[in-house]
């Protein structure tokens, strides 16, 4: 599949911009962010709370083999259906400070839409550290797989 997600991380800048165009009308794109059940499906996480309103809060929890591996929470600062969501994002039990996220939903045509996600970090160093995290996770997953293969051989 063609890689359509673009990421802009300017050097010495404490923000990150993620953009993506979807073959979906903006209403459906927004629905995927609004409906807790759908969020759970594509984010691969359990949605504990999602209050879609100004001053509402949210919380996600991801488990693996019955153990909580990842949890995050935040406050929704602004919520305008089919237009924007402004929220904070904080990983629990991690040294990462809270991030500020601006999500903008744009209608391109009747069947296509665009999402722009601007994430602002406390510092450039924290941004760069976060960028490395999926890589670290990837390594862990590869390690887990190796472990599984090895234990299968025993």
């Amino acid at each position: 599949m063609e890689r359509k997600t673009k990421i802009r991380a300017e050097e010495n800048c404490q923000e990150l911009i993620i953009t993506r165009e979807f073959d979906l009308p903006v209403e459906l794109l927004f629905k995927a962010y609004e409906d807790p059940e759908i969020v759970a499906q594509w984010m691969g996480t359990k949605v504990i709370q999602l209050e879609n309103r100004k001053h509402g809060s949210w919380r996600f929890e991801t488990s693996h083999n019955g153990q909580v591996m990842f949890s995050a929470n935040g406050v929704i600062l602004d919520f305008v259906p089919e237009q924007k969501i402004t929220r904070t994002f904080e990983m629990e039990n991690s040294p990462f400070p809270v991030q500020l996220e601006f999500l903008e939903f744009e209608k391109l045509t009747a069947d296509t839409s665009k999402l722009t996600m601007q994430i602002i970090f406390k510092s450039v160093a924290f941004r760069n550290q976060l960028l490395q995290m999926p890589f670290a996770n990837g390594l862990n997953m590869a390690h887990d797989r190796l472990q599984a293969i090895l234990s299968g051989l025993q």
Partner: protein
Amino acid sequence: MNLRRDVFQAIADPTRRAILTLVATQAMTAGAIAANFDTARPTVSKHLQILTECELLQPSQTGREIHYHLNARKMKEIADFIEPFRNMWDDRFNKLESIMKKYKTK
């Protein structure tokens, strides 16, 4: 993984980035590098040590002198570092798209 984190700490410092820029075109001795900065020589040595430890610089001995080269392979790794993060979001968004396409036809 620790090594990777160190690499980013290494390039977070402006003096160290300036050093990398200096040696990008030619290998240089510690003295020649230090001559480009107002900072004390031991400070520059410390920077060189950090850059060498995380393999951004490669020292090579020629006679009594040590020249520092830029490790291009390591620098490329840094350029690529955003790729796994992008892939993660791309996978999520692809999933979102396919879920919502089915949702539409429901």
